[in-house]
């Protein structure tokens, strides 16, 4: 018998985090036994109004429709779990918060009349109470499983706040910041991905958001000191999790003043 009912909702997002459910492999079958999946459009279940124990919400709030829907989801769910960088921090689309999004829309669309967007991309927690945040772009299947398991047992899951560097060293990687002067943001990014990018020799992009105690000032100074152009350093901080305050501050510190950029 199902121990709980769940829903998987989508706001403004790329559906990558929902896909993590579908990519659980055998565990998807186990999940289907353990819980009743009431609503999950990507899996073919459309029952938006269902009342559930746990609502997983992917995506950020960028339209009036998102606003209305998240309020309803909150009303009908015991636990709301925000999943992914969009739901937790506003996602890559939160770039609009720091730049002129109206101008961008005009540059992309011939006619902006049919667009109905809010001025800012906001994380779910800015509108409704969120019980738990699962970070990542996309979230990790391992953390998703650990979270479902913990919630079914009635305890909070243990999720890391330590830095990607810790996972990177456990994985036996050589630090690419040290050997290649790569602009790695692992030292200010929450662990959870298993240091995926550094494991392939690439620098970290902040997918899991800000770690505990992110010292972006010191890291940014180091990257600038390594000869990486200031504007590139600034832009590194505001990519996937640009809505987060420590990253925005770093961006503000190193970006070339807007005037110079536009000219």
């Amino acid at each position, binding site marked *: 018998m199902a121990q709980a009912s769940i829903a998987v909702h989508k706001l403004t997002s790329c559906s990558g985090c929902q896909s993590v459910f579908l990519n659980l492999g055998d565990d998807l079958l186990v999940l289907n036994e353990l819980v009743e999946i009431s609503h999950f459009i990507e899996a073919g279940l459309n029952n938006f109004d269902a009342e559930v124990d746990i609502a997983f919400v992917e995506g950020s709030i960028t339209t009036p429709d998102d606003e209305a829907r998240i309020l309803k989801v909150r009303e009908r769910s015991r636990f709301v779990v925000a999943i992914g960088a969009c739901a937790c921090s506003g996602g890559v689309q939160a770039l609009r918060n720091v730049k002129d999004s109206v101008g961008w829309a005009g540059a992309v669309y011939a006619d902006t009349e049919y667009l109905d967007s809010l001025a800012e991309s906001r994380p779910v927690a800015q509108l409704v109470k969120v019980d738990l945040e699962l970070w990542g772009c996309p979230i990790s299947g391992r953390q998703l499983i650990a979270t479902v398991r913990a919630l079914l047992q009635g305890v909070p899951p*243990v999720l890391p706040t330590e830095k990607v560097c810790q996972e990177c*060293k456990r*994985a*036996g990687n050589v630090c690419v910041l040290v*050997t290649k002067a790569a602009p790695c943001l692992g030292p200010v990014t929450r662990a959870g991905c298993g240091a995926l990018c550094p494991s392939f020799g690439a620098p970290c992009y902040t997918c899991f958001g800000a770690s505990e105690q992110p010292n972006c*000032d010191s890291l940014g100074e180091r990257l600038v000191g390594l000869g990486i152009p200031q504007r590139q350093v600034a832009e590194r901080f505001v990519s996937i999790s640009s809505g987060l305050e420590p990253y925005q501050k770093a961006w503000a510190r190193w970006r070339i003043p807007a005037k110079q950029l536009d000219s």
Partner: protein
Amino acid sequence: MDQSVFLPQGDFGQIFERLREAGYRVVGPAEQEGALTYDVLESADDIPVGLVDRQAPGHYRLEQQNHRRRFDWVGTAQGLKPWLFVAEQPLWVAREVEGGLRFEEVRETPVPTAVIGVRACDLAALALQDRHFLDGDYPDPHYRARRESLLLVAVNCHRSADTCFCVSTGDGPEVTFGADLVLDELDQGYLVKAGSERGAELLARLPGRPVRGWHKRRAKALRKQARTQQRALPSRDLRGPLYAARDDMRHWQPVAERCLTCGNCAAVCPTCFCHRVDEESPLDGSLSRAVRRWDTCFNDEHSYLVGHVVRKSAEHKYRQWLTHKLAIWHDQYDRSGCTGCGRCITWCPVGIDIVEEAERLCREVGES
């Protein structure tokens, strides 16, 4: 056991073959993302030749030189630690059974492993890890099993990196204990010395030639050359100044401003032994697995006690790292926890230098 032979360059592979015949997998220097690390090797040809490491705070580069020496580099990214105190160690599994829980110990049979290229500081660090994991009433069975299946072929350093300071800690650059075989690499070949019974048995099966006077003189001169180091800790026992600096946070602010609390220093330090135990369950909840993972004093969770993170700020975290390593270890293990390998300096993303910090603190509290 003062047995030595001279092994010509071309016969180096014989060491490999003897080790493999004796049932060892061979681990040695290998290139990974621009640095040398220890990795499993298939043959002696896998060892890169002519590579030299250039190290500085937060900086490591390999340089290809025009010679055939295999061990002219000084430091690998990690020492022996990941081979013994592994980063992720499953400890036990608990299963639900009729009427209760069943606990099952996890025990692996480690593959006998021979590591080639180990340095004096690696061996000094190993002795400290042995002390921590093996001495006392509860020796660690996982560490012990790996330790007992380990054979060590050490190399005397003939140069130092700019980040080395083992002379000041008394741990190098010459290998004085802990290895089964010790090599001095000359252009013409290797001076091979046995350091244990096992080493002597291996040595007897090598096509070695008699050691000549000039071999010895040359090796001695090269070893002396490695003693020229740019860094030195102010003293082997820094309890006085570090305890004096403890309570005045102004001493810790300058380094805390730069420190990322990323814990890379502790992760690469060959003597750091901190860990945590994570509980993991599969989705169906049928069992619970306890896994031990490397942890560091730079993580909030590391000092989480009765609902509070005790060492929350970078000041407190860095102070813990430095004071434990260079002072409290004396009370715990009768010596400092630093063997002067310089890894924490090289692999700190922002290049914080333990020697510079120790010097600054000594200066500030007016002692040295």
